[in-house]
């Protein structure tokens, strides 16, 4: 036994030193860690635009509220709608609180819908807070008769909405209306709010959905008419909030789209940052957003600043990540192809079964049948497309008249 006393004593001494060391590091963490260090501010988009503005704004004003007054540099990391920057923060960034990032507000949605390229887990990133809330607004031009939500709902004439493309807010809102049976058509490929306002002015389209901040000026200059909005409430908006409108499913979707707007400019740091250092960053973030100079700059740039606590942001993310599959699939169908189901007898077959005709809503229409993608069944058995014959009654799931069929089940 005696022989072990020495190493044991040495061991406890080492343990003691280690414990003292840890305690000491924590003390350093809380106060002096950032002294002489450089904090990287990763911005999820290219220079220019909203995310870049807020990233640089915070980089200019946050450091003075961090003890040790570190340097802050901005690094733009654009790509894949913000997914590149989020992946970087989750895997490659230093996990000691010297890298923070402004990430895309649709991060949780992208993770929940399992978008290609997502390699991050939001619950493993640490939220710092959000710098602004956002409001999304649906507007119509002045040279058309519709003035209210009800008139839009009852419109017999197809209302054209300009949009960037699927995945963007300008597409999602009109597609929500479309799902609720409104007579609207989405015209894609018109990139940027100003271009969509121009399309309205030129008479190409009737309306669009856009953030309130970017629409405010156009409402005044072009006389655009607000119809309804989603996200953070605005005093200046005399129109209904989306949560009071639409069908049940529509409301759920609106809530899903509206949730990220509450934390419209979200900032994160990596996982593994010691709790006291994380608190320090969160406090500095909050203090910076109440800084007089920062507010002055934001006001000059006509950008709103509204601090949202990290806890609120995490709750919003959990809500989105926990959304039911039904809501998510409805969201996805709004963002991508809308399939229609219909049962009818086959009236005509062309191109050796590649085109199949049947009656839908009183009109004869055709669907495309792919040899690879379309599932074809006759009496429950998987068969090739040429097995379909005229007169068979089939159940079709297809992407609208003329579109490709997902499946055809015949009897």
């Amino acid at each position, binding site marked *: 036994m005696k022989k072990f006393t020495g190493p044991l004593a040495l061991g406890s001494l080492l343990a003691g030193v280690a414990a003292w060391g840890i305690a000491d590091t924590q003390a350093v963490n809380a106060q002096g860690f950032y002294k002489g260090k450089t904090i990287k501010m990763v911005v999820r988009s*290219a*220079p*220019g*635009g909203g995310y*870049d*503005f807020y990233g*640089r704004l915070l980089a*200019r004003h946050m450091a003075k509220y961090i003890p040790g007054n570190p340097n802050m540099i901005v*690094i*733009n*990391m*654009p*790509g*894949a709608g913000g*997914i*590149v920057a989020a*992946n970087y923060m989750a895997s490659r960034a230093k996990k000691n609180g010297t890298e923070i990032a402004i990430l895309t507000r649709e991060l949780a949605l992208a993770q929940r819908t399992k978008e*290609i*390229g997502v*390699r991050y887990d939001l619950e493993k990133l640490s939220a710092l807070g959000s710098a602004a809330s956002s409001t999304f607004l649906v507007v119509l031009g002045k040279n058309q008769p519709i003035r209210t939500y009800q008139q839009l709902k009852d419109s017999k004439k197809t209302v*054209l909405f300009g949009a*960037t*493309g*699927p*995945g963007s807010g300008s597409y999602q809102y009109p597609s929500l209306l479309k799902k609720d049976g409104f007579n609207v*058509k989405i*015209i*894609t*490929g*018109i*990139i*940027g709010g*100003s*271009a969509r*306002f*121009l*399309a309205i*002015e*030129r008479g*190409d*389209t009737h309306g669009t959905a856009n953030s309130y901040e970017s629409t405010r*000026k156009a409402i005044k*200059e072009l006389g655009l008419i607000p119809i309804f909005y989603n996200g953070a409430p605005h005093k200046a908006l005399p129109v209904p909030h989306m949560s009071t409108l639409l069908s049940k499913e529509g409301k759920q979707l609106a809530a899903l789209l509206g949730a990220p707007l509450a934390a419209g400019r979200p900032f994160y740091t990596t996982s593994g940052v010691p709790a006291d250092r994380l608190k320090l960053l969160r406090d500095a973030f909050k203090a910076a957003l109440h800084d007089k100079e920062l507010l002055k*700059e934001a006001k*000059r*740039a*006509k950008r709103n600043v509204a601090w949202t606590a990290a806890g609120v942001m995490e709750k919003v993310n959990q809500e989105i990540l926990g959304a039911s599959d039904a809501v998510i699939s409805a969201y996805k169908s709004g*963002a*991508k192809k809308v399939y229609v189901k219909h049962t009818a007898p086959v009236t005509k077959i062309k191109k050796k079964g590649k085109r199949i005709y049947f009656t839908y809503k009183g009109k004869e229409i055709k669907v495309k049948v792919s040899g690879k993608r379309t599932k074809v069944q006759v009496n429950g058995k998987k068969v090739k497309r040429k097995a379909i014959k005229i007169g068979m009654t089939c159940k079709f799931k297809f992407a609208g008249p003329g579109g490709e069929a997902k499946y055809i089940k015949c009897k």
Partner: protein
Amino acid sequence: MIDAAIAGLIGILQWKALLLMMVGIVISSTLVAMPGIGSKTAIALLLPIAFTLNQFEAICLIMSVWAVSNTANSITSILFSVPGGGGSQATIMDGYPMAKKGEAARALAASFTSSAIGGIIGAIVLLVAIPILRPLVLLLGPPEFFMLVMVGIAMVGALSGKAPVKGIIAGGLGLIISMVGVHIITGLHRFTFDQIFLIDGFKLIPVTIGLFAIPELIYMGVKGTGISDLPLGDLSKGRKQGIQDAFTHRWLILRSSLIGVWVGIIPGLGSAVADWFAYGSAKQTCPGARETFGKGDVRGVIAVDAATNAKEGGSLIPTLAFGIPGSSTLALIFGGLIIVGITPGRDMLTKDLHLTFSMIWLLIIGTIITSILCLTFTRQLAMATKLRPTLMIPVILVMAVIGSFAASSRFEDVLIMFAFGTIGYFMRAGGWPRPPLLLGLVLGPIAERHMWTSVQLHGVDFLWRPGVLIIFALLVVCVAYPMFQDRNSKLRAQETES
């Protein structure tokens, strides 16, 4: 209007504003001359300073970086066949062969001079267009934009030289490459193979650097000589000659500048293709150009640089009239200018007209100063072509790597650059024209987007809109005129023979 013009001029002629303009010009000319580092990076760096300035000073600092970036961009294109930025690719076509012939000073001088004149013409067109800006832009919808892009695609023929079939194939290849990434209309991923770096598609800068710079490096290494193995001659004389060249070909400059302005007006098209459009048109219309272009014809340099600088005036038209930035750089600039209270849009043509004039004056004064500055250093720059290859190859290679990486800070872009370097080498060795590939890459997505939007709006009937028909007629003239001219000259040659 005259009051506003004078107020605008006085605004930027104060000593602090002028000093900031000089700062902008020097930063732009040195930083932007590095490949891959565009004016955007320089502007992003300067924006925080601009927040503390008054409106005129902010315009002077920020806009001068942008206004003059195209002038210095050509330096590396001419000397090393490495494009300094998106707008200086076509300068390589004749600028680099000139450098190889020992005429680097002449090429640089011609480039700087035509750049200055082009910039002035662009500013004047903008000035003349002020009263009709809004109606002009309102006339052009997606169908008209689509047809304008088609005119550009018709340029492939002109850029293919004596190998039209190879040119069309290369153009097709460019179109296919342009499809990689997320399809903006449907949100579908095309040819991305679940690779995250392919989601945004292939970026123009790494592709261009690969296609043009890497093959030259290989050739230089094999040959074992510097860029030029001919004597440089009297550099001052070369410079004088270059300046004279620009004035001799003044009509070419005017024509190319107008092309530049026209391309600038189309949002999203501007920066990357104005040079090719001007080059293609010069090749079609200059006498004897078909034989001499690509082998070091000074007209090839003049046409390109006049157009790239003139397009800046053009791209201000949609920005000022509607707040639609003509390019991503302008989006960044106006994002910054908003902070000092300058908002693009209708106000710029009414209440804030004096600020618009400041910008026009700045375009004029800035380009003149930059060109004089660059002309001063032409001789020193030209000497770089005499450096031995053991020194040049590593330097250019580093420039190529940094340039590819800097554009969007992605390591994958460096790999893309080398991949296209290999493709470029084989294309060059096999006599395949490389410009159509670039044109396909740039124009493909724009044409596709405008076509989709047009079809959604009007169905196939969009082709019968009067604007579309007029532009189509222009396209026919563009294609038919050189053919007609060719036949005429052949006939004439036959006549003289008989």
